[in-house]
């Protein structure tokens, strides 16, 4: 057995999470913000699978949580892209700063 343990996976997923957070905070384009959200969701999936493998190998709960997260992320991406395309038709721009029609 190799010497890669649970904490290696947790550190990789933490790095991925904060890279996603950085992208979400700095990007101004809605599609790239959506890509950052996908990175964050993927880091959570790595955590679920690593905990399932290293701590609870007699259960399958991490596997199921990952499957449902992937399904919900797919639905979320589809709805978000539909909203972005609709917004682009009205504003001719997909920058987050231009979507201000609900501002008081």
């Amino acid at each position, binding site marked *: 057995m*190799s*010497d*890669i343990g649970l*904490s*290696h*996976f947790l*550190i*990789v997923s*933490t*790095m*991925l999470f*904060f*890279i*996603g*957070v*950085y*992208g979400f*905070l*700095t*990007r*101004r*384009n809605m*599609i*790239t913000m*959506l*890509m*950052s959200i*996908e*990175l964050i969701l*993927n880091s959570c*999936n*790595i955590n679920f*699978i*690593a905990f399932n*493998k290293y*701590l*609870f*190998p*007699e259960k*399958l*709960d991490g*596997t*199921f949580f*990952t*499957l*449902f997260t*992937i*399904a*919900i992320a*797919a*639905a979320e*991406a*589809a*709805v978000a892209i*539909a*909203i972005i*395309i*609709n917004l*682009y038709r009205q504003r001719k721009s*997909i920058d987050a700063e231009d979507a201000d029609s609900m501002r008081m």
Partner: protein
Amino acid sequence: MSASTIIFYILAAITLGGAILAVTSPKIFRSAIYLLFSLIGIAGLYFWMSYEFIAAVQVVVYVGGIVVLIIFSIFLTQGSGGDMKDPIKVRSLFAGLACLAGYCLVYYVIQRTPFVASFQQSIGNEVKTIGEQMLSTTEHGYLLPFEVVSMLLLAAMIGCIVIAIKTRTTK
């Protein structure tokens, strides 16, 4: 250092390098392609942990579905060329500092936490086991979430069509 250790580090480097390039690249299309590499690296990490079914689902749904959807939406909205607007300098500085601080905090917690494994026999993760448990109605079954997710996907599909459809203005 065994071969599997080296493979783990290569996969982690692909994942993290792709992710960093995906959030910093100035061209949006390249950013989507770097995201593709990052997601393939994550699928490789699942393969490394011998969760083959999850890795296959990752490749099919993320690499085959979501990234293709993102690329299509880039073509529909922006085209492939042209740089995006640069991020605001002050904002990226403080976002970087906040992420670094958050990473250090989580790293500290991970190093301090004693993770106690339950030393029981592994149930295995063949597709047969996953399928039987997912559709069982016993204590550890996941039939109800399965049905709820199918309803959610149906609702999301109808919602996408309603939102993105071109409204014809008849006068």
